[in-house]
């Protein structure tokens, strides 16, 4: 459809306005929440929207924003705006159509960054594909069809693998709890056999690694980046690749902490392989866009390395790297696009000496090339440095190898500048320098990169809580964690891994552990245990009745309790107790696991912090939580006893206690619970979730 010039301009202006509004909103949100001092992490979202969507399948339109998503949305808005501007002159065919697809991709990307319902996430994930395919296929360069199909097939296959992971997790969760849900928070509580967790994690990883792209899954990338129109390349490199990294941070790692931990060496090796491979192949390119495309593989290798280093430092570095790579590579693609527009070629052999005619462009390119090679003062340096610093703690050898990537980056970046802007020129270049709107975009990008490089703290603060969450879910080896449990737990076994939390209750001998919140009923055990729910006391000589009913364990001497969804396979020696799982030695297998199939609204998740680690407990703890967690506390009492406050229902003489002298670094804070029970204290997490 031939669109009139005026119509085309109107379309462009509309798209521009939309992206500007998006950017203003995102920046506004950042400033607003920044001033409030809210940090934002999973479980304590800055803002969330939770609407029913496809109720029969337990699908909700659940969007939520924490520091990480906020930053990603900011990046999206910024790059989206830039792509509209740089397409202003480049796209002349089917302008309306082009912007339709552009906006659709961006909508999909924003959706991906915000969705915390896995169906919604998959929905947006797939939504990004089609318009991107069209952007490449219809407005791309000479070999666009093959590039588009390649892009589509790779990502679609990865997406379907991820879908299988999602569905497997969904059903695993449903079979344990009887509750069908795609919600991240629900699914994160699923107890998985290690093998199953590993398979599902691989499904997720495959989906994200294709997008990232990790080494080995990258063949679509050079073609797609090279053939796409400028805006397409900017969005591909700047945003679509980030969705892969984001997916790892948001889903693949937190959902399967143990499996991710096991897989970490492989992933890190892939990351390092990507760093080197991308860098080496970048040397070999004579096509400008292709060169930049290969540098993307290299830079995203750092992100992969950082994500799987599992410490806050490296994770923060990965986030920084994601932002800065989006900007610097996006900018390089813009410059490549401008050059192609003016010279009609992307061959660096046919460029050279352009500095003379286009000094502004040359200067901009110089800055971004410097950013790409990791010059201190620009954001990329911070990202790569933090990643390497964090990774160094985990794996010295791989880190050392990865550092070689930085050297390579220096070489190819300088080489790029040399060949394009200096160097001898084959023909006398006659070329227009940057136009005002182009300068504006590039200048803005330079400014942001500089700001990120000089004052990274603002960004790092924003993403910190989210990254700590990611790092904190990496608790695996129980041996090194002081086990803090819900009250009434007594852990047998030597070592100072013992904590007991119920001064009043514990009458336990060395043999019997008390179960509390759990609702465990133990038959045929010696009654060495005090049961303290006045209303429900049924403790005969033989039956112990504890806390919230739900589970029963028959015919066993309760020797220890196993706890928590995520950890403790080493139950033989270090018994742990928490709300979720109780294990009793000698009991038949099927009675060993207690699934908290409690009624809707009577379960929640408690997160306790020790050091920088977060540990999660699920169950029916009667704990009104304090400040940062307030939003998550969605139940008051149990349905059976509507008028009994929870703390009492559970029959717990309040749990109190400051951190034990033996474990000064395990913070547990008490609060007064309810006015009616002045002596009932509740367990709470200290403000800020950290020590």
């Amino acid at each position: 459809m031939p669109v009139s010039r005026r119509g085309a301009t109107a379309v462009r202006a509309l798209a521009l306005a939309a992206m500007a509004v998006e950017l203003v909103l995102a920046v506004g949100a950042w400033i607003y929440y920044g001033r409030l001092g809210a940090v934002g992490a999973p479980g304590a979202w800055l803002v969330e929207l939770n609407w029913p969507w496809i109720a029969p399948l337990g699908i909700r339109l659940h969007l939520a924003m924490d520091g990480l998503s906020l930053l990603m949305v900011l990046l999206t808005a910024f790059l989206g705006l830039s792509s509209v501007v740089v397409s202003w002159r480049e796209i002349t065919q089917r302008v309306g159509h082009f912007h339709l697809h552009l906006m659709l991709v961006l909508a999909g990307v924003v959706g991906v960054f915000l969705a915390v319902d896995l169906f919604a996430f998959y929905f947006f994930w797939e939504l990004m594909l089609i318009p991107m395919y069209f952007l490449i296929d219809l407005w791309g360069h000479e070999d666009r069809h093959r590039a588009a199909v390649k892009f589509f097939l790779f990502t679609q296959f990865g997406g379907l693998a991820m879908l299988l992971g999602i569905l497997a997790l969904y059903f695993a969760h449903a079979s344990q709890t009887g509750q069908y849900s795609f919600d991240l928070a629900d699914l994160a509580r699923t107890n998985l056999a290690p093998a199953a967790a590993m398979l599902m994690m691989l499904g997720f990883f495959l989906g994200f690694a294709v997008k990232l792209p990790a080494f080995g899954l990258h063949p679509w990338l050079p073609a797609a980046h090279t053939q796409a129109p400028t805006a397409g390349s900017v969005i591909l490199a700047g945003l679509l690749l980030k969705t892969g990294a984001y997916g790892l941070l948001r889903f693949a790692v937190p959902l399967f902490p143990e499996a991710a931990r096991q897989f970490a060496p492989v992933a890190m090796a892939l990351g390092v392989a990507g760093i080197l491979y991308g860098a080496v192949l970048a040397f070999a390119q004579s096509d400008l866009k292709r060169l930049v495309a290969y540098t993307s593989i290299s830079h995203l290798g750092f992100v992969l390395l950082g994500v799987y280093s599992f410490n806050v430092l490296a994770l923060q570095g990965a986030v920084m790297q994601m932002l800065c790579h989006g900007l610097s590579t996006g900018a390089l693609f813009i410059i490549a696009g401008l050059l192609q527009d003016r010279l009609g070629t992307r061959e660096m052999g046919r460029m050279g000496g352009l500095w003379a005619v286009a000094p502004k462009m040359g200067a901009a390119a110089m800055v971004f090339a410097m950013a790409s090679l990791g010059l201190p003062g620009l954001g990329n340096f911070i990202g790569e440095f933090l990643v390497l610093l964090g990774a160094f703690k985990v794996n010295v050898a791989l880190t050392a190898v990865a550092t070689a990537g930085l050297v390579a980056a220096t070489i190819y970046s300088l080489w790029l500048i040399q060949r394009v802007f200096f160097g001898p020129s084959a023909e006398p270049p006659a070329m227009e320098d940057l136009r005002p709107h182009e300068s504006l975009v590039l200048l803005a990008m330079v400014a942001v990169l500089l700001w990120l490089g000089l004052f990274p703290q603002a960004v790092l603060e924003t993403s910190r809580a989210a990254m700590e969450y990611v790092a904190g879910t990496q608790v695996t080896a129980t041996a090194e964690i002081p086990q803090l449990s819900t009250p009434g737990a007594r852990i047998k076994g030597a070592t100072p891994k013992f904590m007991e939390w119920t001064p009043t209750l514990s009458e336990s001998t060395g043999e019997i552990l008390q179960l509390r919140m759990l609702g465990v009923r133990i038959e045929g055990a010696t009654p060495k245990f005090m049961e303290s729910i006045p209303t429900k006391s049924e403790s005969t000589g033989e039956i112990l009745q504890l806390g919230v009913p739900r589970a029963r364990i028959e015919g066993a001497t309760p020797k220890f309790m196993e706890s928590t969804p995520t950890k403790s396979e080493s139950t033989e020696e270090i018994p742990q107790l928490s709300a979720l799982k109780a294990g009793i030695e000698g009991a038949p297998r099927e009675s060993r696991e207690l699934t908290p199939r409690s009624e809707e609204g009577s379960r929640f998740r408690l997160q306790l912090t020790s050091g920088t680690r977060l540990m999660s407990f699920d169950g029916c703890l009667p704990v009104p939580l304090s400040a940062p967690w307030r939003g998550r506390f969605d139940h008051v009492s149990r349905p059976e006893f509507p008028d009994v406050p929870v703390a009492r229902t559970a029959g717990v003489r309040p749990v109190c206690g400051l951190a034990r002298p033996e474990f000064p670094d395990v913070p547990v804070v008490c609060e007064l619970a309810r006015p009616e029970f002045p002596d009932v204290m509740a367990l709470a997490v200290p403000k800020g979730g950290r020590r």
Partner: protein
Amino acid sequence: MTLEQIRALLPLIILVGAAVAIMLGLAVRRNHAFTVAVAVGSLAAAILSLALGPTVATPITPLLRLDGFSVFFSGLILAASLFVAVLSHGYWNRRRTVISEEFYILLLLAAAGSVTLTMAVHFASFFLGLEILSGSLYAMIAYERDRQAAVEAGIKYLVLAGGSSAVLLFGMALVYARTGTLDMAAAAAKLAGALDVLTLAGVAMILVGIGFKLALAPFHLWAADVYEGAPAPTAAYAATVSKGAIFALLVRLAAAMDIQSNPPFQATLAAAAVITMFAGNLLALRQSNLKRLLAYSSIAHMGYLLVAFLAAGTLGRTAVGFYLAAYIITTLGVFAVMIVLSGTERDADRLEDYIGLSRAHPLLAAVFAGMLLSLAGLPLTAGFVGKFYLLAAGVGAHLWVLVAALVISSTISLFYYLRFIAAAYAQPAAPPALPAAVAMPRLARLAIAVLVILLLWLGVYPAAVIRAIQEAVAIGR
């Protein structure tokens, strides 16, 4: 027969009555528009009578049974028939060389046969419905008698469908020989899960017969030739209504006889599903004729459906119901585009016909692309939720091999759907092979608009539909 039963039977009565009425009308005076109006009106009335019909499960003689399940699938079938009837109007108007009115009689009869299939709880009514459907289809396929391809397709379908009916009958006879009853539930009760060689053979032959009609591999060879030869509305009909009705019957039969939990059948059907998915998708890769492509893709889609079918249970059945609805809407959408583009001489079924479609008909091109994307299972479309549901059912039943086959083969399928979409949006090098179609009839436009709305509705907010299907498919034994 009580009044309640007559009320339950009303859709069938309306359809058959309308067929006779059209026939008598033609004896008096030929008028295409009037005929279409009667056909469409009667289909709408049949849908209405379903909606207003008995709300409790009503057995109508031992042969038929109107329950939530048959209401849902009959509704689907009748609505699809209605769309085909509406679209046929413009199509036959352009084909001035052919008498068009009888087509609607056949269409109504085929719809009656299909509705019978969805209500059948007895082998006799099963066979009766199937034969009414197939008998009408033979004629609908060979409707353009002076086109050799059409006649060839008709004969091909006649011979193969006849053969498969014979196999089916033999299977029924074997089951009857063992159980002494033709009632599905009673036969299943007599067999009580334990199948000996004779009944095993019987049920297997019934499944072969059904497999033929659904064009499951390895019985899929006829599909492409028949679709290609048939006029576009007939092809649309065969791809949607006839397959939907037979699949509905298969689901009911399986629920009665518990076929999925029988290891030999499970294994065989699983193998058939895998072969069907791959055969359909791989064969579709090389097609540059849209009808042949849709034939192969419909084969593949039947393979996908088998995954949910094998998953069984309420989840599996809901998935089948939803996917069938999505598939029918989508396939009708693609055919609708083809039908409105078809000229006076031939159908717009070649790849060349679609090159540059976005220039000549931007909206139509968008619809076309949307429908193909739905077939490929991409978001915002019904196909996305449908495929999601299928995979969910498969994963829920731990059918990992099948699910993996579905994933891989549907990735393959993207190739050929994208090819046509890319063609539609490509810049034409030469002037289009077909002259720009005559102005689209308003009715066809309306039909396409409704299909698009349905496509998006099912793709974006399908909660209500899913709930309705969940209720509908909760058939007991």
